[in-house]
């Protein structure tokens, strides 16, 4: 079962919820847990799960490289490139790695077979085990590289359909294509929000993604402070179950700031996360019936 944790707005507590959900399940059950940190621009889950990172693989995009001896400057490569990543300028063919999506189209169309592909490193994937036995995998985009999606795709490929494994995925904020690449094929989407005008505004975008991709969703309200009437109303109207509430508390904020998982700050929350998981299981069973 794949559960992705998303939000729309940044800073609502996705990583807080995702990591404590994984920990609660690991401490209270026997099913293997895989945690994927797909927020490859700004991954933070390792702070809370503290894995011993053992393996590192580089993630490369295949960038075209032109063999000048074979190139006739016909510019067919440039014609087909949808991203203007390869151009014939004067007597040279110039490649722009940061615009290149690594699709291979130029290489396929070159009539002289003058294009080969070279690996261009854009980031890394690392994995390791946590003390609780959670298999932790994260991706990190190299600073200065614009495109996170190739790394997210590689992370998702690591999911093999293992029976009874629970996969928890931490996503990046926002609602555009990195989030879509992350949540694709998830069985359930936990949307973490906060009862503020910004939180509600951005939640709508995240809900649209769940509808467009037909992934059932539920909401976790973080930093609740008695002012969530509008938010609750919205959830009710959209048939979005509110699965859990975490109150605003300075003690929690300070603990998170120090890198402590929520269930270490207040251990009672373990039960809440188990209950959250059970609600998701129940919702999915209903869906399948």
């Amino acid at each position, binding site marked *: 079962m794949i559960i992705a944790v998303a939000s*729309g*707005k*940044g*800073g*609502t507590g996705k*990583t807080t919820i995702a990591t404590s959900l994984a920990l609660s399940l690991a401490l209270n059950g026997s099913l293997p847990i895989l945690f994927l940190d797909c927020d490859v*621009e*700004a991954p*933070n889950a390792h*702070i809370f799960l503290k894995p011993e990172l053992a393996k590192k693989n580089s993630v490369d995009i295949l960038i075209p490289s032109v063999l000048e001896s074979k190139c006739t400057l016909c510019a067919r490569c440039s014609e*087909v490139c*949808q*991203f203007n990543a390869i151009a014939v300028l004067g007597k040279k063919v110039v490649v722009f790695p940061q615009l290149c*999506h*690594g*699709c*291979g*189209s130029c290489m*396929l*169309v070159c009539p002289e077979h003058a294009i080969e592909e070279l690996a261009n490193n854009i980031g890394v994937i690392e994995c390791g085990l946590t003390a609780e036995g959670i298999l932790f995998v994260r991706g990190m*985009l190299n*600073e*200065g*590289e*614009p*495109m*996170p999606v190739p790394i997210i*795709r590689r992370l998702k490929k690591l999911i093999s359909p293992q029976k009874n494994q629970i996969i928890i995925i931490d996503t*990046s*904020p*926002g*609602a*555009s*294509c*990195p*989030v*879509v*690449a992350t949540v*694709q094929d998830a069985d359930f989407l936990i949307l973490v929000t906060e009862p*503020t*005008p*910004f939180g509600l*505004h*951005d939640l709508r*975008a*995240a809900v*649209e*993604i769940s509808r*467009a*991709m037909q992934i059932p969703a539920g909401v976790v309200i973080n930093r609740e402070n008695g*002012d969530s009437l509008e938010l609750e109303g919205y959830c009710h109207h959209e048939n979005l179950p509110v699965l859990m509430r975490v109150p605003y508390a300075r003690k929690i*904020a*300070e603990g*998170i*700031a*120090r*890198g402590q998982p929520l269930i270490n700050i207040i251990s009672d929350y373990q039960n809440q996360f188990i209950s959250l998981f059970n609600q998701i299981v129940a919702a999915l069973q209903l869906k399948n019936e």
Partner: protein
Amino acid sequence: MKQLVILSGKGGTGKTSICAAFAHLALVGRKPLKIVLVDADVDAANLELVLEIEKQESEKFAGGAVAQCNDDLCTRCGTCVLVCRYEAILTTDDGQITINPFACEGCAACVYQCPTSALSMHQDIVGTSFFSTSNLGPLFHAELRPGQENSGKLVTLIKQKARLYAMDHDYSFILVDGPPGIGCPVISAAALSDLALVVTEPTMAGIHDFQRVVKTITHFHIPIIAVINKFDLFPQGVGKILKLCQELSIKVVGKIPFDSTITEAMRVGKPVTSYQPTSPSSSAIKEVWQKIMKQIGAIEDG
């Protein structure tokens, strides 16, 4: 013309609240400064929620294209499936080609390899850019339909509109509210800025992402200053950020306390400096703004 971009790395550090406060302070300051505002967080555009805006113009935005298959021309040879590197092309049980629009990268490799020209690219309207007037100045913002690519391109477009507007109407300052992260939309938001203000929070996650966004902006040769928001949450974190900034020669222009008036101000749709000018956060933000004005002046003098 000067441009300041506000970034953070980590989401939720307070960029938008601080940006709105700056816009307010610029207007009510002793020497009012005319500012063009840009909300570059097109996934989650929140700046308008703390301004009183009136939409004046809108323009549809076409993003990248998506492949489509004409079943009448398709011979089901499967070449496209082999060519696609993004697993966006799937075949149904009887071999019919379907394309997953969420996975399609828009590269058109399949189009060029299809032997019967059954595949073609179709551009979709994926968002809208807006020009609005507001109580705090002209605002250029946008909405990207959820799930779409090219947020970087949309950011570039609204920034360019803002630039042209500023030139035509004699504005000397562009203030850009940036998105979280470090990827393409952030790079587009930061482009051509004279100064980047990184809003950081002294949490472990905040510090980790601060380093990444700083490295990214430095890669593009933009000068950086920092402000520490919610500083009283984690005193050791403050020490760590100050040390980092010293090592990286980044000036810390202020510390803003964790203050509920920021959320209260958000609820009534106002910048915090307008809602409660004497709150601890408002006073701190005022000091930061004054320092930034001096810094921008310093850049002007070379």
